[in-house]
């Protein structure tokens, strides 16, 4: 494993989830499950994040936020959809304000099922994401292309 996959930084965003998966993601970071033993640190800053964990489906408001966060993250990056809502929309799929899973907006690399996803499943998903991250980094280094996907800091899209 390369340096990147040994110390990835993780960013968590709540699409439109019920909090169930969110608190399980947070529980992963705390002593009992302790995802930090994989060298992972939770960050609040998209510009420094390598792995994006998204919980919950996408609605018309969170769509632009998710897109913006994704575009702000540097390449290579991996997206993990946590919970059934993030995968497909789950029980909320028929709600008038839900567009569907996260993959309707941005490309998703790892799907973690469950309602709510258990910490073990989330950790498993993140470890899978690490392998993908390493592969992406290798491809990225091979291509040697310039960084792309500058998102800018225009706060107007928050509105």
């Amino acid at each position, binding site marked *: 494993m390369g340096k990147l996959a040994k110390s990835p930084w993780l960013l968590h965003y709540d699409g439109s*989830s019920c*909090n169930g998966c969110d608190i399980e993601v947070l529980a992963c970071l*705390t002593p*009992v499950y302790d995802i930090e033993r994989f060298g992972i640190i939770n960050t609040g800053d998209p510009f420094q994040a390598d792995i994006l964990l998204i919980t919950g*489906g996408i*609605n018309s408001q969170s769509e632009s936020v998710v897109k913006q966060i994704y575009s702000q993250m540097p390449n290579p990056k991996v997206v993990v959809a946590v919970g059934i809502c993030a995968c497909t929309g789950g*029980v909320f799929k*028929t709600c008038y304000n839900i567009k569907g899973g996260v993959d309707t907006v941005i490309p998703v690399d790892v799907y973690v099922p469950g309602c709510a996803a*258990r910490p073990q499943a989330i950790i498993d998903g993140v470890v899978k994401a690490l392998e993908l991250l390493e592969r992406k980094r290798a491809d990225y280094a091979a291509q040697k292309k310039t960084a792309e996907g500058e998102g800018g800091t225009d706060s107007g899209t928050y509105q």
Partner: protein
Amino acid sequence: MAKQSIVPFGPQHPVLPEPVHLDLVLEDEVVVGAVPSIGFVHRGLEKLVETKDYKDYVYIAERVCGICSFGHGMGYCEAIERVMHIEIPPRAKYLRTIWMEMSRVHSHLLWLGLLADALGFESLFMQSWRLREKILDQFDRMTGGRVIFSVNTPGGVLKDVDDEMLRSLLRAVDELERELRPVADSFLREYTVGSRLHGLGVLKPDQAVELGAVGPMLRASGVRYDARMLGYGAYPELEFEPVVLTAGDSYARCELRLRELTQSFALIREAVGKLPAGPIAVPVKGNPDGEYFMRIEQPRGEAVYYVRANGTKFLDRFRLRTPTTSNIPPMVSLLKGCQLADVPLLILTIDPCISCTER
């Protein structure tokens, strides 16, 4: 007069596990106004009641929020039971009460952790969440789920417990109470924590009532109201007296939640001791017809469940007014005049639950 500037806060912010957005109007470092915008997690769950069977809707109601999930399921079921005039068996009442208090323990420990995190007190955050796992293990053992349990149904509960589960629960509560003491001391006696919380965001009793505050916000301001006094579940048969503090500042709100934890331990012990034998559910036949406003004390405060049924298996209207909806106006009023650095703390002291609020 200093020049005014507007600082956007959220929706993606390190201190917030959930998305909420505030436009903070600042004069130098002082907040002079705050405009909340919500809607990032709005799904439109209340509408689903028109296309889902009222018995199936329990599962949707539980998924309004993953932290308050048990309470939402219970509130919805209690409202349906009031409409249909169903008396649930005593054992179901006690089980609901035990699970409700366990939910309160997990929610308050979660909140304490988030508060410590907002203070930058990382180890205290980790300790609070370490303790929280103990109660989640018990939930896992009793109901099969860690955050969403799906054990409520109109007419009672779906899962029974055995003696081994109860013994294990009591052991966990004892352990938790013992291990909570040093953590509680850190919150209440630590100089750095106190210096951030004392005198921050004082809400006077009149103001709290006028702004519609509920739950710990209201009780920390000296108003004696707790929806558990209304007499649902097994609370009328248990020794229950709401915790009320008078200072009304953030420190009081923190102390109040710590005291409620101790109270919940006592309630769990008492309810387990008195748990009657018998069936856990009564059969429910027919469809509801009528309406009812049910109030339940969630960990974050009073929640109102309104059910309006028309005699078919689909309800006309389900409305959920969550504690955070009521606590946002007091929060906005407290934000005016505070320092920018205190904004995350003040937002946290109402214990916001955004996915509840927006449904």
